[in-house]
């Protein structure tokens, strides 16, 4: 099936998630849609699969314009989407899930369904037990089930969102083989949404790269990882010369740290950070940098290894203990984790400042006013926090940080900020650095990493490589590491 996307635009508030995107996808080919978080690929795929409507633009299937009100509509016309977390019903069996959503009248025919289930499964090389309950299946098996279901319901276009996260190597191979079979033998259009360059290299025929809501490149595979990274992150800036940081003592140390989460394992990470040092954590989203940062904050207990702060073992310390030791953590989802929607600015300060049972509102209010002035926050002490703009929320978040810090952990500190605000934020951070605070930060923006880091820790698939030699600190050099090439 041929798909033409014509001038699709979608805006959320002031953010243009998709900006006049046009592309054409042919049947029988496997496409990769690449792009960093926020590049607009999820939005585009949701529009394509009927989860949300576009503001403007058209979708044409084999030359016919189509409009979808629901995902079910899209599936009827042949577009099926496989989510990162398969949307199945846990307390049903595999076969029952397979039968769900079919329009067969009141009494579904179990026998017919079983035959179809087996037949499709075998063709794709999946070994699925129809009577197994969903909770007992692995993510990989649930994916396989979902693919079987989508195909049996007539999907001619398969969209897969990060399908290789959380599945085993063998399952990945099965998946890729079946996808190749589907595309090349049966003419199904496969669209892979991913930022894993190795998957793209292994599977795809064609790459579409999005950046900041725009389609910025289309290439036939194979091309070099470096070129892809450049496409994804934009034009490389060379590192500006900067006076070497006066290195203090090594105050924070991670030794052979292993962090296990449901999706990812961070292996054997060791790092020594010095007072007054900025370390950037680079890597494609989901490579382990966030897990590491959260472990440093006491939010994610490590499986093995040690964390030491000023020589003290803090591997088992929780977030509140870490805070007492002078560690602060500023997450990226400001209103999801960090600020409390519904509370006013002054209430945030009252909450974050230490104190006893009572709050002396007079004192807190004058302190708040002082911080508002100092950090140029556009808002009143009585403004509800969610009424502030993103930039002012970020300023508030930074104004809320305690004065004396040993270690400051930041997730994407300039997310969504304009150039001016971003530079202001970094001025504040560097001021703290000058006072001897160690800063670890995550950024999806390679330029930001290169510009502000003294050293860079590059994550790929849960493994970290430390880069302290300036020669490697170029977009090209880091890009290769980010893409998993040493």
């Amino acid at each position, binding site marked *: 099936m041929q798909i033409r996307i014509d001038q699709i635009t979608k805006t959320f508030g002031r953010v243009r998630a998709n900006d006049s995107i046009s592309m054409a996808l042919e049947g029988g080919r496997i496409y990769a849609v690449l792009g960093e978080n926020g590049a607009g690929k999820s939005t585009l795929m949701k529009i394509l699969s009927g989860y949300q409507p576009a503001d403007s633009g058209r979708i044409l299937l084999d030359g016919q314009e189509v409009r979808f009100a629901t995902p079910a509509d899209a599936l009827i016309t042949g577009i099926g989407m496989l989510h990162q977390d398969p949307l199945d019903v846990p307390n049903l069996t595999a076969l029952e899930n397979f039968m769900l959503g079919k329009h067969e009248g009141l009494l579904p025919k179990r026998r017919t369904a079983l035959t179809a289930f087996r037949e499709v499964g075998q063709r794709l090389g999946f070994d699925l037990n129809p009577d197994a309950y969903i909770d007992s299946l692995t993510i990989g098996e649930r994916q396989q089930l979902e693919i079987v279901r989508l195909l049996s319901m007539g999907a001619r276009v398969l969209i897969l969102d990060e399908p290789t996260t959380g599945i085993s190597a063998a399952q990945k191979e099965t998946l890729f083989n079946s996808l190749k079979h589907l595309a090349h033998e049966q003419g199904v259009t496969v669209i892979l949404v991913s930022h894993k360059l190795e998957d793209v290299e292994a599977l795809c025929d064609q790459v579409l790269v999005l950046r900041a809501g725009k389609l910025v490149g289309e290439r036939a595979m194979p091309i070099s990882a470096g070129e892809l990274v450049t496409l994804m992150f934009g034009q490389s800036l060379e590192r500006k010369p900067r006076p070497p940081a006066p290195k203090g003592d090594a105050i924070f140390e991670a030794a052979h740290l292993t962090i296990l989460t449901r999706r990812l394992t961070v292996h054997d990470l060791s790092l020594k950070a010095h007072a007054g040092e900025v370390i950037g954590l680079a890597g494609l989203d989901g490579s382990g940098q966030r897990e590491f940062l959260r472990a440093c904050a006491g939010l994610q207990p490590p499986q093995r290894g040690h964390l030491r702060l000023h020589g003290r073992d803090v591997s088992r310390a929780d977030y509140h203990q870490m805070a007492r030791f002078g560690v602060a953590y500023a*997450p990226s989802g400001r209103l999801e984790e960090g600020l409390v929607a*519904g*509370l*006013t600015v002054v209430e945030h300060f009252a*909450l974050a400042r230490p*104190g006893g049972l*009572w709050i*002396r*509102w007079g004192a807190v209010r004058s302190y708040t006013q002082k911080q508002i002035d100092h950090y140029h926050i556009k808002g009143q002490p009585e403004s509800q926090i969610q009424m502030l703009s993103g930039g002012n929320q970020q300023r508030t978040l930074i104004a809320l940080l305690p004065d004396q810090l040993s270690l400051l952990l930041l997730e994407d500190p300039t997310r969504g900020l304009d150039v001016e605000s971003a530079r202001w934020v970094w001025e504040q951070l560097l001021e703290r650095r000058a006072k001897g605070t160690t800063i670890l930060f995550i950024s999806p923006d390679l330029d930001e990493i290169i510009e502000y880091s003294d050293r860079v820790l590059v994550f790929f698939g849960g493994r970290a490589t430390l880069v302290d030699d300036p020669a490697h600190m170029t977009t090209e050099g880091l890009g290769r590491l980010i893409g998993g090439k040493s």
Partner: protein
Amino acid sequence: MMLLPLLVSLILMGIILSSLGKDAGAALERFLSGALGTPNARVDVIMLAVPMLLCASGLLLTYTAGLWNIGVEGQVTMGAIFATIIARSITQEDTSPFIVPAELLLAAVGGALWAALAALLRIHAKVNEIFGGVALNFISVNILLWLLNGDWKVGTYPQTADFNTPALLPRLEGTRFSPLGIGLAVGAWLLVFWALNHGGKKLVIPGLNRVPVVGPILALGVRLLNFLAPRGTRWGLQLRAIGRSPRSASLLGVRVNRHILLSMIACGALAGITGAVQAIFVRGRLSPGISGGIGFMGVLIVLLVNIRPLWVPLIALFFALVPIGSLKLASSLDPAVQIDASLGNVFQGVLVLGVLLANGLRERAARKRKENIP
């Protein structure tokens, strides 16, 4: 926001009454004059509002922290049981001034223990407080019936003997009016109001002094509150932060689990005192169904006011009108307005629906707004 559910329920009740061939206007008149027409009835309304206000005050704390403390019924029941431990052993000759305070205190402990169980289940076993609460409600009712059918049973029916006067909440001679009861409820509400006060703002209620009986008492409390307002409690703010976003609150340094436990305990203590009031004031004995549904009433009140403490006493008084007024309707001499009092329950049911409907609409509107932000 409270207008919608009330309005919808009133209209629905009118339709129901008319369809039964009753005169809705006359019924409303009889309802109001019945519930407010005599000093005794007014006292009954106020005194029925006392347990509701006590319970709702406690629930303000947990609902502020985003905890649906459905287990409050069980906490009321346990409070009544614990108060009875003392009350049933008091003889007519006991004169100690500490009897009633001891009963109330023990009841608070009982309610708090029961609430702490629900909180611990949530924190350590990840059992949602709603499900834990439902289970604990069930258990508490069975403990009550076990006691009332066992050692505590006096006479034929599964209930204790009537408590002796020294064990009862003191009332004014010859009436059902208990200033101590009102003081307890208003005091609890003022404390909660102060604890949850937003940013030290002062409270102004125009015309309060002109409201009979309750007005001056409330006005005094409000003055006290305003004197205290500039020193707010950190706790109330922490609970509000948890209620809005537990993740953010935790990252801002709030010990979320600790405060979940504390707010449940505080609510349980007030619910326990509510149970004591039911046992040593309303019924004067421990009998089945001792909670009288006051816990669920409290939940309803708190949902109806959307967790704004200021409105709670008013709504509690309004809810207290319903059983008294519908009793007067049911026991009415005039057959045109003689209406089965279960319609009072229907009215409450309709109110619940109205509240849920209004909440649903509100959430829908909020989601709509949210969808326009990435």
